[in-house]
Structures are given as C-alpha cells and as structure tokens.
C-alpha cells in the first residue's frame, strides 16, 4: 500500500475536488481512483524524477511520530542549479523512503 502522503498536494487536492464534483460516480469508485493516484504518484516520483534541489534554512520546530517527520523551517532558500526560491516558512512532511512504509496520511 503506497503512502497517501501526496493527497494533500496541489495535484492531489485538485483530483479530490474533481472527484467530489463528479456526483455520478460512487464513493467507492472515487476511493479506488484515489488509491490508484497514490500508487501512480509514488512510482512516478520514485522512478521518473531525476532533478535535485538543495535547501537551507533555520529549524523552527520538528516532530517525529509514527515514523513521520514534520519540520517547520524559516527563511529557506531552495536552490536548483538553474534558480533560487526564497520562502519565509516551509512545512516539510517526510515519510520513510525504504519500502517498509505502510499507508500514512
């Protein structure tokens, strides 16, 4: 079972909203769509993404519970070879990368 981590992303939220608008599909079908989305996004990010981004900032808070890390950083610079993005606050939710993870929201 893949992480349901990516449902609260721009892509995942758009999908969920669209599914809510489609009144004619059953809730069970909507759930299956979301599960398929989870699998697809996990494999896509694992296999089809190659670029690397560095980021540096100061740590405001951290949490580790249920094998999920949650960080809040301040004044972060996201650096890719091409460009630089600065943000005041970023929340990072991270799950274990090895294939031992079970579904975690």
């Amino acid at each position, binding site marked *: 079972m893949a992480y349901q981590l990516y449902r609260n992303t721009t892509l995942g939220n758009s999908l969920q909203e669209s599914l809510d608008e489609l009144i004619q599909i059953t809730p069970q079908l909507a759930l299956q769509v979301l599960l398929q989305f989870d699998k697809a996004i996990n494999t896509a990010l694992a296999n089809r993404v190659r670029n690397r981004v560095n980021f540096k900032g100061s740590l405001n*808070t*951290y*949490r*580790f*519970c*249920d*094998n999920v890390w949650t960080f809040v950083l301040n004044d972060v610079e996201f650096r890719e070879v091409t460009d630089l993005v600065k943000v005041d606050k970023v929340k990072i939710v991270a799950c274990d990368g090895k294939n031992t993870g079970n579904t975690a929201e």
Partner: protein
Amino acid sequence: MEQNNSLPPFQGLASPQGALTPVMPMFSPMMPYGSGLTPQPVTNTNSLSLLEEQQRQQQQQQQQQASAQQSGMPGGSGQTPQLYHSQTVTTTTLPGNTPLYNTTPLTPMTPITPATPASESSGIVPQLQNIVSTVNLGCKLDLKTIALRARNAEYNPKRFAAVIMRIREPRTTALIFSSGKMVCTGAKSEEQSRLAARKYARVVQKLGFPAKFLDFKIQNMVGSCDVKFPIRLEGLVLTHQQFSSYEPELFPGLIYRMIKPRIVLLIFVSGKVVLTGAKVRGEIYEAFENIYPILKGFRKTT
C-alpha cells in the same frame, strides 16, 4: 557536620593512611562538603606534595579536634584551626549560580615549613558542563498525544519507550516516560536544570495532563577544567593504582575514582580534567582541590 560519627565506614576512612583498601565499595551518601575530610591518596613520589599533604592532614586534625569529631588522630599542636574552604559553605544545592564555592585560600599560618604555604588553593574553578536531573510529574501520560501535539518532540516506541523533547532556553533535552517520570539533561547549572524541568512540566500540563512537580532531584553533575600543564599519567597510575585505571590503547584519559568525595575524574595528558558523578556542586570543587596537588606532583617537565 557530625555525620561522620554515624557512619562507621567513614570513620575507617578518616585515618589518613589507614583503611583505604583497594576494593572499597564506597557508597558515599550525600556528604555535605563541609565535612572537612579530604581523601589522602596513599603515597606520593613527590616530596613537596607529600609535605603539603601532611600539612593539610595536620590542619584537618586541628579542625576535627576543634569540632570534636574524630578520634585517634595524632593531633597537631594547638594551632588555630584553619577555615577549610569547604566548611565555610552552609547551604546545599540550590543557589547554584552564585560563586559561593570560590575557594578561599588557606592562610599559611602553620609553622611547619617556613618556606611553602600550607597548601594553596589552585585558583582554578571547574566549570559545570552538564546536569542530569529527574522529576516525577505524578500522572500517567499518553506519549503519542504528547508527540503529536507538542513541538520539538520525537517518539519512536520501537526504538525507545519515551518522548524525547527539547527546549531552547535553557538548552536541554528531556526524556518523558509514560509513567509520568522525566529525565532532564544538558543544563549548565542546578537552577537551570530545575527551570528547564518546570518548563517541560508546563508543556505537558498545557496538553491537558494533570502534571505535578514531585521529587525533583539532581542525579549527576559534570564539570571540567584545565590545570594548564601537561601531566605524567603513567606516573600517576603507578603511585595511585588503587584509584586509577589508565589504558591508553582503550582510552587516552586516566580514570581516577576518588573515594571521598565519590567522584570519577578523567585526567588527560594535556592537563584537562573532567569530573563527574557529583550530586552537588561542592563535590566537584572538593574533588578538584583534592586532585590538584597530586597532579602538580606529576607535572611533565619536558
């Protein structure tokens, strides 16, 4: 100050060259530093430090006679007892930050040797580096709730059955257990440790648990200092083998287990000394004052 009389093992210790057997399961209960007994490690190769030790022993004997404690010690002549620095302090752990323990140098009034002062204080004060304390919050805790709602918390029950929480001021780490007991580490003074523990208790309380602050106790204090000269560890382990263990292939420092006060010192060739195992600040200071003349005797001259 009368505690010595009630503790037979300590009376055995009191005689300077006497009962310092190699295997001493010394379990010193909390002796206030005002007991006035310094451990006199058995022999010294350096005659000067031996002389200083004899002078110090004589002064202790005078103080003990003055306070009518010990028996059977060959008394010195009726000289005015020197106020040993450890006896000037009357309070115990709490006002940790105040320099109450600055060693007052012993005034050289004994006519034993005209040349050297009886024993000078080292003038070096060990700095506290770490304090470990425990407190009981007095109620069962749901660690998962705490880990999910509190900031700066880690909880991995598969690895360790406690929440590890940190605060920035005082910079400390706490281990919070489901029984309600908590360990607070990393503070640099007794008052900071207590304050930090209270802050953690307040965090837990704000999460909805009926937290109290029971039995706060400092369990360990670590201090360090620098004698500013290199030390011959080999010589030290030869003469003080009852107390020392030195395995340079295992660890570069000499581990000196002082009996009274019961403190473990890590002594390094560079002259840096780490003292640990204290329950009160005075034990660290007392242990360092005890070891300093011994270390001076093993100063490297090259």
